[in-house]
């Protein structure tokens, strides 16, 4: 057979040249079939082979079938006539399984059957709807093909039917048809009409089981068809009839698809209450936790799954994702705590990417609480905000609660360890980690105003809550509340706590609306108490009423801005609202109530006074400072954007008071100064920035601008060159450089650079706000470089700063000494004011030590006595390096050794205390 020629020629043409119905014998060949990719033709070959016209080749037929299947597994040619399978078609095991299964079913169903017959007498028709309006008929439209007229006629309704006539419904129907006419397609809004509750009165257990299963099946089918909403409805019906784990579990899955994470959580928890080791529920809960950024819980759940099913692929994959997220989380979250830690301990530059040692730092004293906070935040699904509030140290009105904190935290740590070691994490009811810590706070808090029986009820409730029996706890709280109101006790605090606790139960039960009601009551009693606010926020969030949730979270944050979970939620909700409402989402928000400052302060005071752990205290303060710092900074940035530079300068200055090692603040303030044409100050700030970060191109650029403003074109040029050296792509710098070079040339051409023209400068810049204009208007006039000269008789702060800088840059202590001599000591603070930085201070110290001390110790004392009143003095002091400190100590030692009538030893000591 000439196979090569055939297979190389186009396959269709070959058979087409022959009669279309026949297949050449040569094609009935393994090689040909293997190479042929024309499905139709192959099917034809198969037909020939099967028909046996060309002889019977069972192997070839089979081969051809396989090849067809490879090309198209659904090919109709493969449909063969099969016969029912018999026991011979199965292995013994399989067959046994089939028959046994059927036998078991047979036995069970027969028992059911008999029971059903016994119950025959109890049957009733209670819940059967009435008979349809009798004898309605539809005169059917014509059959197709027949040309007769068609018509749909509503026969007159019976009187009976008129009784049932619902005007509103009919109107609605008319509306419906109107709308459908507009959109023309029939919109199926009828899903809404599926009742989620079913009347099960009069049904036997057996019937309920059947019914519940059927509803669940319907849910499954809807799920497979992708109608998740519908699926949820059917699962809900199913569990309404009879709670089954499978239905809850499946509903959880459908809710995952709908991204209703809190519903997922509550469903999974229900399953786990019934079956503590249900892996699917654990997995789904883990998924929900993951989505809710509750990574630690997710992690625990997955570990529980992997313990029972180590090879569960989806669990492994989920674990991987979560671990990744947790790592990312660790790198982000505790940065705040870490930053402060470094600052306080080492006075180091803060460094955003020092992730590496993050973990190592966690166990050490300062870092621990930060770590703990993070874990606390990560833990505890619905209750995480409360928990966080707890460890964050923000509490309700009764101050004695704070004592509990110390116990709560180690408890949480212990708990955490338990979880990590991994016994019985799968039991949410018992091991729920978020509840004990939290509830202890409430249970141990003095129930002073409560009469003993009510207090007992409340404690029982707390206990039950702790055990995860939310329903029972709910009952206890309700009893307590009723008792409370009946007894007419006047103690809003306690009632508030009761409501708040009951709200927590509702929240756990997924009953968000009741939770909201209780929280609102609690808040009426005690406005701006934190827990009810947070719980209500969560309830709103789970009801997808994001605006209200947002408002509540925001209010809570006003009370205590350190609740990380609330921050997270706010961020999440913001995103959602932006998606929902677009850019104007804020306008649709209800008003956020302003929390009275007294309350906030109360909180702060309370927290700081009652903290037991010192490192907590410092950390708290540090974190607060951090928060304040960030807010000031952002406010400053905002102001800059609005063009209100003066105000922005104020904000930035305050920032620097809090924390003077943030390069960005200096550069930002420099920008403001430039805009305000206060170039000297701008330059000063740029210098400070460059001291902190020697290669900050923004600082260089702004210093260049400042220098340009100060008409120091050379310095300007060198700064710009520096900028370009750091980053060649800065076009502004290039432009500026060109401009400045031109100016420089002009200047050199017009004036003698060496000629000191300081008098002019002095007058010129007397009011330096106008200086910029002056520069522009009379640029070819009296510019000169002051860079190399020092004005030793400054008449204002600016000149003094200029002179001081010049002296310092030349390291000319003599000039500085001269300068200091001329300055009246009492005005020194004003003169140095904003320009004071570590280097300047140390320079002054050096000058005092080397030049003035010997000759005029009185002046030195005077100067020192005034210098420490300078605006940012304490801050600058903190920034001194050890060498500079040593120098300072030396100065005071020398000062001590000098005898002078202007001051006594005691005075020196007092003064030294202020410096060292």
């Amino acid at each position: 057979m000439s196979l090569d020629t055939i297979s190389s020629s186009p396959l269709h043409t070959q058979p087409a040249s022959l009669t279309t119905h026949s297949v050449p014998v040569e094609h009935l060949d393994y090689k040909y079939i293997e190479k042929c990719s024309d499905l139709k033709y192959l099917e034809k070959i198969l037909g020939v082979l099967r028909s046996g016209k060309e002889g019977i080749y069972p192997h070839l037929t089979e081969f051809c079938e396989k090849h067809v299947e490879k090309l198209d597994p659904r090919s109709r040619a493969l449909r063969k006539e099969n016969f029912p399978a018999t026991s011979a078609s199965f292995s013994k095991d399989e067959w046994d399984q089939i028959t046994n299964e059927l036998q078991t079913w047979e036995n069970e169903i027969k028992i059911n059957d008999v029971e059903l017959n016994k119950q025959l007498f109890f049957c009733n028709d209670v819940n059967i709807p009435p008979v349809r309006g009798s004898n309605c008929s539809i005169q059917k439209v014509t059959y197709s093909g027949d040309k007769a007229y068609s018509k749909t006629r509503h026969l007159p309704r019976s009187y009976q039917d008129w009784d049932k006539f619902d005007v509103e419904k009919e109107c609605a129907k008319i509306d419906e048809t109107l709308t459908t006419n507009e959109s023309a397609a029939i919109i199926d809004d009828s899903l809404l009409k599926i009742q989620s509750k079913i009347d099960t009165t009069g049904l036997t257990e057996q019937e309920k089981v059947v019914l519940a299963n059927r509803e669940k099946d319907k849910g499954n089918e809807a799920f497979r068809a992708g109608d998740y909403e519908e699926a949820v409805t059917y699962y809900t019906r199913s569990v309404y009839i009879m709670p089954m784990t499978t239905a809850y579990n499946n509903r959880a899955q459908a809710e995952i698809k709908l991204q209703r994470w809190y519903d997922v959580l509550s469903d999974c928890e229900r399953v786990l209450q019934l079956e503590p080791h249900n892996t699917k529920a654990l997995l789904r809960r883990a998924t929900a936790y993951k989505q809710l950024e509750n990574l630690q819980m997710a992690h625990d759940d997955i570990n529980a799954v992997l313990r029972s099913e180590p090879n569960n692929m989806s669990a492994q994959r989920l674990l991987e994702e979560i671990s990744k997220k947790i790592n990312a989380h660790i790198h982000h979250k505790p940065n705040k705590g870490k930053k402060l830690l470094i600052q306080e301990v080492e006075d180091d530059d803060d460094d955003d990417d020092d992730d590496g040692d993050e973990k190592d730092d966690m166990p050490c004293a300062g870092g621990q609480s930060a770590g703990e906070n993070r874990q606390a935040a990560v833990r505890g699904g619905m209750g995480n905000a409360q928990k966080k509030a707890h460890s964050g140290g923000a509490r309700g009105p009764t101050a004695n609660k704070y004592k509990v904190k110390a116990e709560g935290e180690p408890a949480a740590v212990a708990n955490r360890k338990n979880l990590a070691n991994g016994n019985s994490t799968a039991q949410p009811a018992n091991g729920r980690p978020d509840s004990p810590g939290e509830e202890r706070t409430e249970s141990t808090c003095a129930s002073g105003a409560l009469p003993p029986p009510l207090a007992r009820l409340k404690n029982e409730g707390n206990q039950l809550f702790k055990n995860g029996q939310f329903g029972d706890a709910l009952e206890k709280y309700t009893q307590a509340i009723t008792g409370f109101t009946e007894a007419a006790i006047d103690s809003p605090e306690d009632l508030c706590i009761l409501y708040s606790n009951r709200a927590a139960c509702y929240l756990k039960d997924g009953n968000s609306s009741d939770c909201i009601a209780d929280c609102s009551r609690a808040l009426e009693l005690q406005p701006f108490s934190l827990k009810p606010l947070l719980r209500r926020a969560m309830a709103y969030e789970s009801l997808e009423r994001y605006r209200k949730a947002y408002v509540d979270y925001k209010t809570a944050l006003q009370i205590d801005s350190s609740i990380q979970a609330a921050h997270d939620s706010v961020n999440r909700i913001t995103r959602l609202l932006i998606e929902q409402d677009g850019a104007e989402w804020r306008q649709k928000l209800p008003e956020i109530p302003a929390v009275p400052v007294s309350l906030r302060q109360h909180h702060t005071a309370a927290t700081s006074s009652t903290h037991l752990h010192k490192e907590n205290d410092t950390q708290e303060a540090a974190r607060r400072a951090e928060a304040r710092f960030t807010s000031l900074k952002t406010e400053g940035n905002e102001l800059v954007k609005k063009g209100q530079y003066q105000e922005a300068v104020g904000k930035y200055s305050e920032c620097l008071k809090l924390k003077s090692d943030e390069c960005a603040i200096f550069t930002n303030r420099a920008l403001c100064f430039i805009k305000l044409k206060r170039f000297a100050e701008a330059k000063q700030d740029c210098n400070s920035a460059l001291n902190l970060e020697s290669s900050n191109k923004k600082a260089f650029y702004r210093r260049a601008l400042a220098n340009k403003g100060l008409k120091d074109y050379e310095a300007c040029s060198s700064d710009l060159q520096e900028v370009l050296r750091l980053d060649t792509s800065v076009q502004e710098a290039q432009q500026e450089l060109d401009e400045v070079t031109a100016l420089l040339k002009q200047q050199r051409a017009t004036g003698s650079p060496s000629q000191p023209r300081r008098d002019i400068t002095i007058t010129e810049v007397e009011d330096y706000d106008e200086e910029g204009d002056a520069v522009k208007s009379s640029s070819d006039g009296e510019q000169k470089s002051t860079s190399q000269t020092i004005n030793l008789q400054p008449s204002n702060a600016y000149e003094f700063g200029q002179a001081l800088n010049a002296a310092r840059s030349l390291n000319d202590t003599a000039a500085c000494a001269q300068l200091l001599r001329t300055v009246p000591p009492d005005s020194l603070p004003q003169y140095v004011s904003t320009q004071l930085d570590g280097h300047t201070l140390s320079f002054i110290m050096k000058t005092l030590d080397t030049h003035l001390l010997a000759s005029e110790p009185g002046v030195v004392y005077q100067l020192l006595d005034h210098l420490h009143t300078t605006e940012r003095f304490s801050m600058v002091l903190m920034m001194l390096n050890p060498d500079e400190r040593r120098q300072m100590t030396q100065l005071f030692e020398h000062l001590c050794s000098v005898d002078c009538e202007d001051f006594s030893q005691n005075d020196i000591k007092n003064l030294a205390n202020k410096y060292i």
Partner: protein
Amino acid sequence: MSAPLDKPQVVSHSQKSLNYSLFDSKWIPCSAKFVCLGSSCRGTGLMQIYELQHGGIKLVKETEKTKPIKCGTFGASSLQQRHLATGDFDGNLHVWNLEAPDVPVYSVKAHKEIVNAVDGVGGLGIGDGAPEIVTGSRDGTVKVWDPRQKDTPVANMEPVEGETKRDCWTVAFGHAFNDQDRCVCAGYDNGDIKLFDLRNMSVRWEKNIKNGVCSVEFDRKDIQMNKLVATSLEGKFHVFDMRTEHPTKGFASVSEKAHKSTVWQVRHLPQNRDIFMTAGGAGNLHLWKYEYPAKRSEMDGDGEERGVAGTLNLLQNVTLSTQPISSLDWSPDKQGLCVCSSFDQCVRVLIVTKLNRVRSGWGAAVDGRTAPASLGCEQSLQSETPHQTSDQ
């Protein structure tokens, strides 16, 4: 490639040759028994109850009626009563208490001619609302009955006077997802399919599939209309996606020509609405699975919503006999168990295996198992099905 045994297998459990013509067979809900309905050689009606017993079937009860019985349903009866509604050659609708089958509990002369098809809803917990029976007859009318109302139907769908009466071959309830909405679908010998809305008492949709409609069935009666399968005389069947109706194009559909002869009946698996069995005139059964498209509806050029039909997968096919299979019924209680009657006077009990593993297509059954267990519901839901069946 798919190993043959990973597909669902149709296993012949037991079969029994009878001495009369079988027209219909129905499982008695919540039992291991089924009813066979037919006509004896003497021209009387026969009603037999069989029970599965130790791998075989055994006759437990037999009743003879005056007229041959064409069809029956338990659909309108409560689970406690389990009354069977039957339609006979004389146009009578009877409701029987099978414990005392001598006297009907409800009886009405429903039609002038043979009752070809009967269906029930509102019983057995299937469908909210009143229990109702629908009958379709050769006299061209389709009538809805409430067993609580004597003599008159609660709804009557008949041709306009003076028009040729078409033989109604099949009827089915659907859309009964609350106590008001309910639809009846009827198929006629000329290929007409008509959907009657019982709530509004109007014709909701009409379609002609060119060949006589032998059987119609909704995938489920008690949900919002989802899918409708209609089988026809010349071996084709159509699956309509009933969720999205286009104003001019109607419902999207997919059709398949599978049997080389009439498709006599279609029955959806009660435990999975996307799997159904068609029974053919050449004595064969085809098991199908409907695969939903990625999106079930799309916008057409005019901004109107149009349904998108899915695809059909043949899961299994078997040939049981040379004579047509006249009826098929899935057990509502045991997934995969079914009974079918054929014109070779034989009743067969079949078991279809591995229905809970069916996913998409042939190969997919294998893929699904080897593929990593995803979090996707498909698998998890499936695996729960056995659990639920054993609960019953």
